[in-house]
């Protein structure tokens, strides 16, 4: 059991054992975040490159801080792309970074499967920080870590994932990760935003959020990915909010002690109302804190040791 030198591309492909290893290390590392001097020398001399082809504040900063807290040096390469204006190929860009001595690449990309491609291009490990509509494995790991913080277990928990499942890499990674660890997942959203044959992934699918939320321990609200809505998938944000947004009424179907999660950034008043987002049941900021610890653990396991 080892992640050393390996890529972290998806939770679909990650073993439960490896997931648990990362979670348990993250548990130990979280303490560092509350120290006056938030730095351990573990990854001194290692260089982590954040290669971001899509805008991101949270994930990029989270990886940067994780690297810094572990004494690795983070460098960033941000580039907006579209199929229209191509310029240098991803393969060339990445090979250049590798040639400069980067030890690990964290990539965010707008195209699904790009991290799998990058892993074929590069000898150094690749960590997926979100690829198109495919996966966002580190987000799901931090989500699972946060759920464990509040519920101390995953097996048997009812998790409702609500909203734009079709375009959500967060939903996919959580579905793969949480089902592996024994949670019962239900998803709900407008039919146009539920991907085909989703139930074959071992989840229950509903078109009314209330049905999915009924008896849930965790209500996971997905961001409505306005930038990916290329077709007429729903008529208006107002209508979306009325039928699919999470508010006090819809949340009342969940268990009394249910927690509310969101991967950020939130569209307040669209997929989640402000009173819920800021309520004591919301653990959205805990997710952000956990994210740094989980990413420290990932860097530790992938970058430590020798080939």
């Amino acid at each position, binding site marked *: 059991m080892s992640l050393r030198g390996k890529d972290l591309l998806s939770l*679909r492909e990650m073993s439960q054992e490896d997931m648990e290893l990362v979670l348990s290390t993250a548990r130990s590392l979280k303490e560092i975040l509350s120290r006056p001097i938030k730095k351990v020398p573990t990854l001194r001399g290692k260089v982590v490159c954040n290669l971001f082809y899509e805008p991101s504040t949270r994930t990029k900063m989270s990886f940067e801080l994780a690297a810094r807290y572990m004494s690795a040096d983070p460098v960033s390469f941000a580039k907006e792309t579209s*199929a229209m204006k*191509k310029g240098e*190929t*991803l*393969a060339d860009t990445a090979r250049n970074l590798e040639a400069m001595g980067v030890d690990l690449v964290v990539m965010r*990309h707008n*195209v*699904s*499967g*790009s991290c*799998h*491609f990058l*892993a*074929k*291009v590069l000898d150094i490990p690749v960590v997926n920080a979100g*690829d*198109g*509509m*495919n*996966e966002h494995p580190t987000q799901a790991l931090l989500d699972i870590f946060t759920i464990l913080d509040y519920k101390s277990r995953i097996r048997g928990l009812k998790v409702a994932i609500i909203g734009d499942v079709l375009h959500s*890499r967060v939903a*996919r990674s959580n579905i793969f990760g949480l089902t592996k660890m024994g949670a019962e997942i239900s998803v709900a959203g407008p039919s146009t935003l539920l*991907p*085909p*044959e*989703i139930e*074959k*992934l071992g989840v229950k699918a509903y078109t009314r959020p209330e049905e999915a939320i009924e008896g849930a321990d965790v209500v996971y609200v997905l961001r409505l990915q306005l930038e990916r809505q*290329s*077709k007429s998938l729903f008529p208006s944000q107002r209508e979306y909010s009325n039928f699919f947004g999470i508010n006090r009424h819809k949340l009342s179907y969940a268990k009394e002690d249910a927690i509310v999660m969101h991967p950020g950034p939130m569209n307040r008043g669209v997929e989640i109302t402000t009173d819920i987002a800021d309520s004591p049941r919301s653990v959205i900021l805990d997710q952000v804190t956990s994210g740094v610890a989980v990413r420290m653990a990932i860097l530790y396991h992938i970058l430590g040791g020798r080939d």
Partner: protein
Amino acid sequence: MADHLLIKGGRVVDPSSKTDQVLDVLITNGKIARLAQSIEAENGTTEVLDATGKIVMPGFIDMHVHLREPGFEYKEDIGTGTRAAAMGGFTAVACMPNTQPACDTDTVVGRILERAKQTACVRVYPIGAVTKGRAGKELAEMGEMRAAGAVAFSDDGSPVTSAEVLRCALEYLKSFDAVLIDHPEDLSLSAGGQINYGLISTVTGLRGIPNESEEVAVARDLLIAKLTGGRLHLAHVSTKGSVELIRQAKAKGIRVTCEVTPHHLILTDETVLESGYDTNTKVNPPLRTQEDVAALRQALADGTIDAIATDHAPHHFDEKWVEFDYAEFGISGLETAVSLIIDRLVLPGIIDWMKMAELMSLNPARILGVPGGTLEVGAPGDITIIDPELEYSILPHNFESKGKNTPFVGWRVTGAPYGTIVGGKVVMYDRRLAV
């Protein structure tokens, strides 16, 4: 002094005469001269090929290839494309008009034929565009192209998007007795799509292309074919629904034929996932599901599907070594088709040798209205010889084609093209080019 080629001792499989027996075949002056149990070579004037243990068939015709010339010679040209065809056991190829410029005038048709004369080692049949610039708006000069040597018409790469334009084209082509080959795709349903719509698109997060994007177009095309009475051929059908629609149309007497590619008969969309997003699995129409594959195989057996064509779509390495969405669609198919069909369909007993010859030789010749497809006396001396036992691994770096883009890398297959004879001239023998 006559020019003779004698192929001795092979099992001759000729669907035009339902022949299946060990015979010698004599080709004289480029034409089939005689088939008999034992033909003696005339000393000195006869080249003799030993075909013992081999299968001798009328030359295979690939009615759907992209030779990329003119305009995209960095992907393929007529020389490399036809050498790939010869290695793959094809004696003739029909090339699609999505070149630069598009093959939409008699001048371009003439240019392709001229280049073929200079560089091709198998027969090249140009397919002209249906509309000017393949833009789907105005009819191209199909009569002039027909006269210049175009064998069929298609806007392949794109569908004929307007039903009205399709209607006019099918009507108009009746005067020239040429077939219209449509690429059936409703572009509004497939927009942005990368792979088949279904479980695998859900798991991979790649945008899906539903079966219906093809079936809507197939249904429309069949209705227009019925309306006009024109000759319609549907390219690369890939779904269960498409073959059901075509089966019904044929039962009603609509003049329609269709083809299927080897990759749609063998692979499913699961390959995309298993290969870790290998862009060589990206093809249009996309690889479908097991249910579709089963339906296509059934349709081969019951005659709904008339032909196997490769849709040979060579691309440069750089065009595939990119993110999935940015990669070109297409598979380089000429050099793998015959082996894959033997290994996956003939040897397992899904079709027999006779059916294979019908799908890859006789029917394509008939649909396109070109010579060949038969070993009857007087027919062109175009022959494909198959080694049914040769076992080897598919290695794209050995391809004659410039396009190394295949999802079949490393596949171990049994059965291979052993000889390719065009007009009595040996262009490939014993897996080596003779030109």
